[in-house]
């Protein structure tokens, strides 16, 4: 077992998630080093989102072991929650509240009282401090996604999970989100990112490690350094062709 400071950000062995008769995760083996950017690819129904939900501690695996940041995630999920952030295609923001109120609310859940210095810092980081008092429903989709990134950072997590973060964004918003993610990544090189994406180019450009899934299993897992882009594309397309059971 790695220590909480070093080693792997994620270590999963024999991970199984069963929904009735269907196995969404089937004996999945996964190790992600700290500071890595893992991109997860695969066809619909491959188990990518199920895996991400298990890593976000939103869903408990049926069987297997899961260690996150050196902590047993199945035994001590409450200890881990402040150290994990999730950015999804859904903003997880209240449209009738302002950006400031949304961040204050989520900050209060993590710290009891809103951490105003951190909220100011995050609003500046996502370049929304000039709109901090406007209702979130008046924001464009891209602005909401930037605020969602700020929301995911209120507890300064060590592991950031991204579930199709570019979904529904226009090209300009995609560029802004990319730039923002780059800045977030630069701020803390020890922070680990795990992204689920259907966009092969986007996922490939960010990743240091790759995982291709099909039918709840890892079809391919490896470091980007050892991957030829075209061979990877071929493998990905072949996997997508496998479809789901």
């Amino acid at each position: 077992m790695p220590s909480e400071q070093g080693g792997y950000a994620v270590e999963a062995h024999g991970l199984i998630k069963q929904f009735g008769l269907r196995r969404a995760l089937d004996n999945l083996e996964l190790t992600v080093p700290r500071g890595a950017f893992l991109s997860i690819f695969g066809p619909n129904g491959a188990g990518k989102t199920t895996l991400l939900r298990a890593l976000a501690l939103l869903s408990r695996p049926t069987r297997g072991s899961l260690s996150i940041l050196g902590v047993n995630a199945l035994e001590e999920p409450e200890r881990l929650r402040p150290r994990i952030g999730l950015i999804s295609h859904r903003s997880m923001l209240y449209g009738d509240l302002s950006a400031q109120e949304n961040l204050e609310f989520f900050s209060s859940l993590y710290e009891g009282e809103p951490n105003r210095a951190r909220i100011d810092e995050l609003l500046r980081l996502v370049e929304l401090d000039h709109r901090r008092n406007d209702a979130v429903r008046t924001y464009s989709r891209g602005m909401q996604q930037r605020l969602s990134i700020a929301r995911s950072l209120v507890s300064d997590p060590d592991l950031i999970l991204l579930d199709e973060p570019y979904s529904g964004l226009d090209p300009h918003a995609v560029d802004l989100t990319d730039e923002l993610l780059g800045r977030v990544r630069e701020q803390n090189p020890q922070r680990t990112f795990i992204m689920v994406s259907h966009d092969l180019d986007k996922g490939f450009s960010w990743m240091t490690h790759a995982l291709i899934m099909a039918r709840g299993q890892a079809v391919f897992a490896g470091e980007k350094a050892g991957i030829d882009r075209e061979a990877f594309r071929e493998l990905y397309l072949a996997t997508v062709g496998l479809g789901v059971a």
Partner: protein
Amino acid sequence: MAARSSNAGKRPSKFAQYRALLTKDLRQELRTREMLTSMVVYALLVLTVYGAALSQVGDRVQVVAFAGGMLWALIVFTSLLGLNRSFAHETESGCLEGILLAPVDRAVIFLAKATSNLIFLTVVELICVPLFFVFFLSGAELASTTPMIVLPLVMGTVGVAGVGTLLSTMTIDTRGRDVLLAILLIPVIFPLLYACVSACSVAFMGVEGTFGTFWTSLAVAVAYDVIMIAAAWGLYEFAVEG
């Protein structure tokens, strides 16, 4: 990052989280008034229907005999509407997942949501119960015990808010959740409903020698609230994470 909290790693108090969740719900409702407006308008419509239904009843004494049941039918149907709306904001943009990501005891989420539902139901009752008296009981000779209806009203509202919060959480991700909540809620709260109607009817009628029934019914309502809210508290983690 520079502003990393000095509290990082330290768990916030449950009361602080409860206060944050409750304040968010109240702030949102004060801003949109979605739930309160729809509940009050619906209650007024039910009162209008009652007016039509009772238009041919000349004897006000008969209305007093039905008043407990009518009042509780109004409260239950209005509550159903409100409870269905209470999780609308949480599911629209996946906000509930945002809450579940945080280190919040699921029972605290239940308590905050049940409290906000209780507050909204109480506000609606404060508007609708006086209107019920004005429309249907103004000409009737009311018993001196009538103010005692406050006790079953409070106990019943607490129970409906508590059980309703659990059931509306269970139905948020289902198809036809509006109907499903009604199908689940009414049978589950039936003992409470029966006890509250019974207690209210006794208070409205004020007949000598029936007050044993009032207190027995009230005791049933209190016992129901204690047992069901404790069960809902314990089961909430499974409901909200399921």
